[in-house]
């Protein structure tokens, strides 16, 4: 099955689309509870809109599925256009969809899923840092995109050091770039605050900001052994993939090397966002899924050890079916 996805042909894209739809059917079949506490004003707006115009569970699942598939196509586009992986394929998108569909609550529309769109766009803009004649523009874009993401999930503030590290690594150490990044993050927040202030509704935003400053970013992961089984398959794959990247690192072009390193730097930030969330680690998985999808694709795109890779994929799929349909809650 993997052979089909190892290419970037039209048939591979169609197969990827069908596969994505199949893996995200749960939300249409069963009622999934989704608990979101004290969302930010922007997230509250989206949730209220959904509640008013698309209140049913399958409608939320439909919007979420469309968003995840769009994000996955964009991940594929980043991978292929920026040559993050040595071969063009639909595998990064495929694993992005898989990682965003492991547990049942991931089937529904969440503020984290919306915020993840901006994080993917941010990664895309950071890819241009290396070749850009004037890096200040990608830096501004990246800052604004993170700022937009922050409006939906304040925990994305964790990615501020990631942007700063990427700027230093992809360009050169320049205080002006760092300051521009920090200032541009505040731009969407400033406009939202001004809008809410004019409408006399700024208290919710202030509450969210106070909470973001005051909250602990190192909480228990809250994962049970049952929910952790799938990671016994994924973690060795990631380790092998990281080793492969390290082994072949200097065979790549300079830009690819830097992009790969940026992806690897993103992993600990994704892991931190799992710890920071108030919502259970499942809903923060989209953030981690961005770098992991590239890493997993890097492992599966190679044709060596074919059967082991097929079995690994089968085990991941079996675990997903179990989590989505058979596991209680």
């Amino acid at each position, binding site marked *: 099955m993997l052979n089909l996805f190892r290419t970037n042909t039209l048939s591979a894209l169609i197969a990827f689309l069908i596969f994505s739809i199949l893996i995200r059917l749960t939300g249409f079949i069963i009622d999934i*509870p989704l*608990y979101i*506490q004290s969302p930010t004003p922007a997230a509250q707006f989206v949730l209220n809109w*959904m509640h008013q115009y698309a209140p049913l569970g399958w409608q939320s699942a439909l919007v979420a599925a469309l968003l995840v598939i769009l994000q996955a196509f964009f991940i594929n586009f980043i991978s292929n256009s920026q040559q993050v992986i040595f071969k063009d394929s639909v595998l990064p998108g495929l694993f992005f969809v898989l990682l965003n569909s492991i547990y049942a609550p991931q089937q529904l529309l969440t503020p984290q899923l919306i915020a993840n769109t901006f994080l993917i766009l941010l990664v895309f803009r950071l890819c241009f840092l290396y070749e850009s004649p004037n890096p200040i523009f990608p830096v501004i874009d990246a800052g604004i995109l993170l700022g937009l993401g922050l409006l939906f999930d304040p925990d994305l503030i964790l990615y501020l050091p990631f942007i700063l590290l990427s700027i230093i690594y992809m360009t050169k150490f320049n205080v002006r770039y760092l300051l521009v990044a920090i200032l541009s993050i505040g731009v969407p927040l400033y406009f939202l605050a001004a809008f809410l202030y004019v409408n006399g509704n700024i208290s919710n935003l202030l509450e969210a900001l106070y909470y973001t400053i*005051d909250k602990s970013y190192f*909480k*228990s992961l*809250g994962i049970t052994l*049952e929910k952790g089984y799938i990671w016994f398959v994924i973690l060795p794959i990631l380790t092998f993939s990281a080793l492969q990247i390290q082994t072949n690192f200097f065979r790549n072009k300079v830009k690819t090397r830097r992009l790969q390193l940026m992806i690897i730097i993103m992993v600990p930030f994704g892991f931190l966002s799992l710890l920071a969330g108030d919502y259970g680690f499942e809903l923060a998985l989209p953030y981690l899924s961005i770098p992991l999808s590239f890493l997993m694709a890097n492992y599966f795109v190679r044709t060596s050890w074919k059967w082991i890779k097929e079995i690994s994929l089968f085990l991941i799929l079996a675990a997903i079916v179990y989590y989505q349909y058979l596991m209680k*809650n």
Partner: protein
Amino acid sequence: MIKPNIINLRSVFYLIMALFILKPLEGNTQAIEWGSPQKIKNKNLFTQIIGETSNGLYLLRCKNSDFSAEVIIEKYKSNLSQELSISLPLAVNGLVERVLLVNNELFVFISAKNVSTNTIDILAQKMDENLKNVGGPSVICSFPVAGYLERRKIQVKTNAAKTMVGIMFLTKGTEANESKLNLYAYQGATQQIFGRQFSLESTHKEVFLTAFDIDNEGNAYVLLDYPKTVEKGSVDSRAFFLYAYYPDLDKMFAYELGGQDQFIEELGFTVNNFNKTIAVFGFYSVAEGKDVNGYFYNRYSIITKETLLRFQSLVQPEILEKLLPPKSEKFPQGLDNFYIRKIIPRSDGGIMVAAEKYTRVEQRYNYYLNNMPMEGVRVIFNYDDVVLWSVNSDGSIHFTDVVRKKQSAVGEIGNAGVAIIPTQDFVHILYNSDLDSDGNVMLHSINYQGRAEEKVLIKNTSFNISLVPSEFRQVSANSLVASTIRDKLFTLVRIKF
């Protein structure tokens, strides 16, 4: 060969005599066991002791007294040494309503907004002895978001045997001038016994819930009051009720409290699981604005659902004189501002009541900042004398006692107040003699015949110590675990009576 035998007999005699002499002393001695002092990390100033099992002692730490978010759960060994300390793992994104030991198993009760169904779900999440979640959380109760009252806490508590869980909360009514009282009870933490909703003819803002409890049979009791339409000044403007829901009959009984010339100021209730009665006790004044100088004691049968006793009386002036501080024109000569802290049922149908004088004073002061006059407000919480009443089963006063103290605290955190621990023979009252660093921890003990004694329980000699009275838990019939601040460090203490 004979001499050693004589010596042996003498030794036995002396030993028996010694035992007889020492026996009365043994009844009123206390053993104190200290945990290891710890720094207060990340401003987690508040502690809530959940309880103790054979596996260890569990407690929560939090930055505020809500314990609803950013909660740390800790496990201690029986010698009070810390074993585990982690942030409370929540499987869903919600607010912690309560963490309880039910049948010696740890359960976290979470309220969370389910955006899929637009309901507020109350979930029970079981934890193992290593503070790991066991399975997923179970939804035990759901209600529409439209009825949810954010500022009103959902009350979750166990029965005395810690085998059942009761949940009580108010929700908005469907009509503008009504509210709903929601009652749920569970065998263990998740097996529902009943879930009922009752309409109240007042808005949620007007309804005041004083107390809620469930007995060992799974019956639920709520003490509440709401306004009644009466001519102002003639009778109490609020209607006070004890609501008792009996699931076996599927009926709610409403026992009206108060009566003619009774303006209820303070009240509380207790469930007597031993002789199957509910006792309601309170203070009243005879007219609005007058000194509170009367008390009432009502008792209801759980078995027959009948009112067994309805007693009200003015407190005799000589008793008031004994209980209250010397006369002063400045302060009312009544039981105004006395708040019932604990009602302890007696096996004969009587009760013992401890009430503490509590006042809140706002002090306004002026100061200059950059040559600009500014006004500041300081709120001082005064915790003064504690009065103890022993009330006979017929309502008459058996004896009274008073603990004289003057405590003032600024802000929410305080070492002020009292910890009241009923044991088999005594009612013990613990408090800090002074709230500054030179104070001792005092123990006032009174037996059920009215014999009282006061002594220094922990003397401030080699270290500064202050008990946090609001943060204690009676973990067995004769022992408690409390949090203390010892040399500015958080330290647990176990006191055995």
